[in-house]
């Protein structure tokens, strides 16, 4: 459990302005070798390093980040956390993540503003309400909170939706998970970095991996822009560039890099008190603590590394916002950005060993990387430490597609190229 931050430490520094705050995480020079190397200083990479040190007692760990920590998707998402997952391997994994979120600020001694405000998914047809029922029933059968709301109950909870006749898609009801919510995303990267640093993990920024070293089929280390670093345990956690890095070890993966846009409006006084998502088209929105409406929808639909989206898709997502919540038409867009996501054929991730000994893969997170951060770090640390899958992430094996064990949570089929 990291320490050092509290109201008392704040008062102490307020009274003694001359004494500066300590550095949040140390910035050592890279050593020539480590027990374990994690490539990627995002949420998953830093969490993995933290749990390697905390749960598996590894002392000599390095996180190599090509830019600055948190510069990837952990700093560029719509901050939603939930565990409304229906398929076998997913349900337990994402519920574990949500449980870890509940205590994370306390454990990292870094307030991630974990807000359990509840998520409400709006259904637009009787058949869709049946599919929500199946999802909600599975959640309840696995001890996860879920309830179905009919139209009247929904109207009391979310009065600002468009219940009128002029709506293109009628509102039938909703699935509600009260424990879901949002988290201040940057705090997650900094929190894990600080906690890992306090456990002796070396966080090396501006250190891009340019090659993965192998002796026949065993990994021996990496080439970086700051010199060669040896290790017989290398974990890849570079969502968005997963194929790019895996190719350095000769691996060709079931991953395509796509841009996913997200938007924020100007801050206004609190109006939306839940995470709201929609069944007509993929759309999700919540109001940040600063007051801006943070929302997003589908990927643009073609592979790209440019981290910027096309206008037609930005317009489409905002059309969803106004169709579901008419007041959004008066909100003013403050900023539109694009993040780089790994899309996989069945929409589920990989946390697993690879055909190369000592090389481990964590990627393929599609839309759901941020909410998985704690459990992903927890299980990937187990895999890297013990060279085996953790029971919670056993379903996320690289060879599941060869075996026909697709984990198609959304039920849209092998859709990376069909969008």
């Amino acid at each position, binding site marked *: 459990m990291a320490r050092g931050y509290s109201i008392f430490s704040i008062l102490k520094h307020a009274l003694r302005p001359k004494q500066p705050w300590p550095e949040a995480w140390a910035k050592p020079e890279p050593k020539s070798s480590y027990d374990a190397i994690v490539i990627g200083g995002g949420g998953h990479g830093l969490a993995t390093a933290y749990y390697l040190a905390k749960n598996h007692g590894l002392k000599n760990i390095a996180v190599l980040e090509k830019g600055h920590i948190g510069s990837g998707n952990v700093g560029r998402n719509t901050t939603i956390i939930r565990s409304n997952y229906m398929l076998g391997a997913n349900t337990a994994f994402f519920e574990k993540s949500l449980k870890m979120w509940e205590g994370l600020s306390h454990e990292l001694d870094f307030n991630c503003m974990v807000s359990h405000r509840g998520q409400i998914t709006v259904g637009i047809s009787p058949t869709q309400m049946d599919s929500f029922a199946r999802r909600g029933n599975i959640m309840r059968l696995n001890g996860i909170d879920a309830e179905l709301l009919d139209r009247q109950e929904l109207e009391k909870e979310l009065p600002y939706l468009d219940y009128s006749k002029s709506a293109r898609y009628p509102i039938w009801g909703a699935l509600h998970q009260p424990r879901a919510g949002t988290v201040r995303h940057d705090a997650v990267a900094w929190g894990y970095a600080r906690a890992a640093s306090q456990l002796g993990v070396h966080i090396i920024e501006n250190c891009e991996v340019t090659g993965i070293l192998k002796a026949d089929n065993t990994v021996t280390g990496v080439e970086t822009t700051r010199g060669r670093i040896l290790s017989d345990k290398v974990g890849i956690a570079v969502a968005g560039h997963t194929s790019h890095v895996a190719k350095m070890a000769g691996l060709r993966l079931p*991953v395509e890099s796509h841009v996913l846009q997200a938007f924020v409006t100007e801050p206004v006084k609190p109006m939306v008190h839940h995470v709201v998502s929609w069944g007509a088209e993929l759309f999700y929105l919540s109001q940040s603590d600063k007051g801006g409406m943070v929302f997003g929808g589908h990927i643009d639909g073609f592979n790209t590394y440019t981290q910027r989206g096309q206008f037609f898709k930005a317009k489409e997502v905002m059309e969803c916002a106004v169709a579901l919540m008419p007041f959004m038409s008066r909100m003013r867009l403050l900023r539109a950005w694009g993040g780089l996501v790994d899309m996989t054929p069945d929409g589920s991730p990989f946390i697993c060993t690879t055909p190369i000994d000592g090389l481990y893969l964590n990627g393929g997170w599609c839309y759901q990387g941020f909410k998985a951060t704690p459990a992903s770090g927890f299980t990937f640390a187990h895999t890297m430490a013990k060279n085996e899958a953790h029971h919670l992430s056993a379903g996320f094996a690289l060879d599941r597609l060869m075996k026909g064990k697709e984990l198609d949570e959304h039920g849209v089929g*092998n859709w990376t190229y069909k969008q």
Partner: protein
Amino acid sequence: MSEFRYGGDATKKRPGPGAGGLKVWHEYVFTFDNPKGPHEEFWQHTLGCRQWFKLKRNTATNEILGGGA
């Protein structure tokens, strides 16, 4: 939505009907080169003439490099 639809990597050789075993089809259907740079790909003009065509694009900048081979 956009008038066009992306159809994936055009350089992947589709095994002939009845040809190629599990490994070859897994390679074709499930794995991607996913390069950060020039990429030859299929696109369809779905809202127009329904024609599928090849296009070369640099995935690092989205610059169109011309029609596919």
